[in-house]
């Protein structure tokens, strides 16, 4: 019988069956379930596949590259903004190339269901000059992952697989196939390949440029770039990844009258696109995310080619696509359906009942009333919901770790009180270096680490910070007289306000660790935390 799997899970099963020896990742919606599937897989356990969470996306990708250096197949997984964190190694490992197959999975989030932006990772793939694969179905997620590892070893390059939320988080029945045996250790034969000092890097970069023709050739004959003929040549359609599904949904039994080129492998197959151009009056490009393909194939000076899509305004420029949003571009009438009745109110997400962040925001809001110049710099996690009513406690929210460093810059500019709020896992992900900077200059900021001992927003995964925050802060050099532990509970409200106020008044760096486990943690985990907590400031 077929297995019922999310796109993410199908991809993970494909990676196990491709013979990976490790997956390295940091949780991030919509990518999280890929790594979780491997963590829970019995086969993966038997094969000793590494699957423990990494501290951030950069450490994850570097570890994956290390495993590849040793000759084994490895995968690294992240959400789109996570690739920004890993961009340094990402851009350089296409220059070094890989040894064991290495696949970078990036899950984009068009419409920003759980993100700050809807950046399109295909630009990164093109920037690094590596092949990109973009599956359109769950079955393709499984198959394309196996294909990606073979392609990676053939081209000696990392391969990007790009997903979008709606494929990551949708289930279908999947047929699985055979499993490839894991690679044994086999070191690179070229001694200088991974030594990117300028004199070697120049040679490697030249090599990367030289093999671009090979990447294109692979796309030209890729089984994932398919042509579906149609009689009506008044328009040709290029549909990539999930957009292909939305296109076909608009025709009974998928019988589209126009010629269609389905793209699931990049760089773009030039010959095949050229032939579509030659045979059709105009080209409609359907792609979820930025107008990536459209931009490449459009004539910059708008002189000759009739290319329409998101860039030309024929399809919505922002937000995800769906079967309805492309209707007009296909020449269909958009039928009116029933509206949402006026009586319906919005229901935004909110912090859980009993969540420790609530008690922390209560304290901060009372302090804000005492001193109206108070600014609160927020960070990425559940506590980002503190931006919204009823708390409205947070003034900024930009990227992982920015709370501490933005508070520092604002304090340098003369803002006081400057309070940073950062979660425990976000702190170890990207906050520690910023704290070091503040400590070096003893900048008057108050850093509150809201420690719920979990990566809560993505499903309460283990946090690398659990039980280590006090030692980390001490190690970074935070003055122990201004390293304070509080328990955010309603009964402690007044006491917590007094403690935070004292630290706001301290003319240097203070760190307040607000500690109470996430209410979503299972009881066993909370009990375990109580045991390992044993934190003492002495």
């Amino acid at each position, binding site marked *: 019988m077929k297995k019922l799997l999310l796109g993410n899970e199908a991809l993970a099963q494909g990676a196990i069956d491709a013979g990976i020896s490790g997956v390295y990742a940091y949780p991030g919606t919509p990518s999280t379930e890929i790594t979780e599937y491997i963590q829970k897989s019995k086969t993966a356990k038997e094969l000793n596949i590494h699957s423990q969470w990494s501290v951030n996306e950069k450490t994850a990708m570097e570890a994956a590259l290390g495993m590849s250096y040793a000759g084994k197949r490895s995968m690294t997984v992240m959400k789109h903004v996570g690739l920004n964190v890993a961009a340094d190694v990402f851009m350089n490992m296409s220059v070094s190339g890989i040894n064991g197959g290495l696949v970078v999975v990036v899950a984009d989030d068009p419409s920003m269901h759980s993100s700050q932006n809807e950046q399109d990772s295909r630009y990164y793939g093109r920037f690094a000059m590596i092949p990109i694969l973009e599956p359109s179905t769950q079955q393709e997620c499984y198959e394309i992952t196996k294909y990606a590892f073979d392609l990676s070893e053939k081209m000696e390059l990392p391969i990007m697989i790009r997903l979008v939320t709606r494929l990551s988080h949708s289930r279908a029945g999947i047929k699985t196939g055979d499993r490839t045996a894991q690679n044994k250790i086999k070191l690179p034969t070229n001694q200088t390949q991974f030594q990117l000092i300028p004199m070697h890097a120049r040679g490697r970069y030249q090599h990367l440029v030289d093999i671009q023709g090979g990447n294109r050739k692979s796309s030209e004959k890729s089984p994932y770039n398919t042509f579906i003929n149609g009689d009506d040549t008044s328009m040709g359609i290029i549909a990539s990844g999930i957009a292909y599904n939305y296109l076909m949904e608009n025709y009974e039994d998928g019988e589209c009258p126009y010629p269609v080129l389905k793209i699931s492998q990049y760089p773009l197959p030039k010959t095949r696109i050229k032939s579509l151009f030659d045979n059709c009056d105009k080209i409609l490009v359907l792609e979820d995310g930025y107008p990536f393909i459209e931009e490449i194939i459009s004539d910059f000076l708008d002189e000759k080619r009739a290319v329409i899509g998101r860039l030309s305004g024929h399809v919505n420029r922002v937000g995800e696509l769906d079967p309805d949003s492309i209707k007009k571009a296909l020449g269909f009438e958009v039928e009116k359906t029933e509206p949402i009745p006026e009586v319906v109110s919005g229901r935004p997400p909110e912090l*859980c009942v009993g969540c420790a962040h609530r008690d922390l925001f209560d304290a901060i809001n009372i302090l804000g009333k005492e001193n109206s110049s108070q600014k609160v710099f927020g960070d990425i996690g559940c506590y980002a919901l503190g931006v919204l009513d009823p708390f409205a406690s947070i003034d900024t929210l930009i990227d992982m770790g920015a709370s501490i460093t933005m508070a520092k810059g604002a304090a340098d500019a003369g803002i006081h009180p400057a309070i940073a709020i950062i979660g425990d896992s976000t702190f170890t992900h990207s906050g520690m270096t910023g704290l070091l900077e503040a400590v070096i200059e003893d900048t008057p900021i108050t850093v509150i680490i809201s420690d719920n001992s979990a990566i809560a927003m993505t499903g309460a995964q283990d946090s690398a910070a659990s039980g280590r925050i006090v030692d980390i802060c001490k190690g970074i050099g935070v003055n122990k007289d201004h390293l304070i532990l509080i328990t955010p509970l309603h009964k402690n409200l007044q006491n917590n306000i007094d403690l935070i106020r004292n630290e706001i008044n301290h003319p240097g760096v203070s760190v307040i660790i607000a500690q109470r486990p996430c209410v979503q943690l299972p009881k066993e985990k909370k009990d375990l935390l109580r045991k390992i907590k044993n934190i003492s400031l002495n």
Partner: protein
Amino acid sequence: MKTNIILAGVGGQGILTIAAVLDTAALASDFHIKQSEVHGMSQRGGAVQSHVRISDKEIYSDLIPKGKADMIISVEPMELLRYLPYLKKGGLLVTDANPFVNITNYPELEKLYTEIKSHTNTILIDAKKIAKNLGNSRATNIVLLGASASQLPLSDDSLKNAIQMLFQRKGERIVNKNLEAYNKGKEIAIATI
């Protein structure tokens, strides 16, 4: 045959359990299935929905087009109405009558009921009470599934087997409570229609 179902509720109310029963039953019946769901931020007490598509032919889109849902099953009355743009003309509405109030501007309940009842094909029941009377208020979602069962392209046996399979690891008592909830939902629906 193609059936499009929208499941609606608030994060944590168990709509993914309904989805899992439908998926399992559809797969065991050799149908094609696509079922999209919401993970991440909105799950925290926000509005959530799942699109379930069951067909004997290939299904393309993971999302149901507007105006093409055969039914909306909701565990909350206001959330039911949020997805009306997806309902086809004369499509079925199934919902629990009990509101989940976690916002300050929650509308008057009577206004919601009036809006719901203005549709012809509606099953508005106190599923929570039915589940409670069976000694398991957590089975509210399964009561609603039962209430929709006669309109689903899935056999009674396949749905019951799926419930059995999904609750198996929680023990026989829980399996039976959920099967009872399913049956009770079915009975009430017949009485309502």
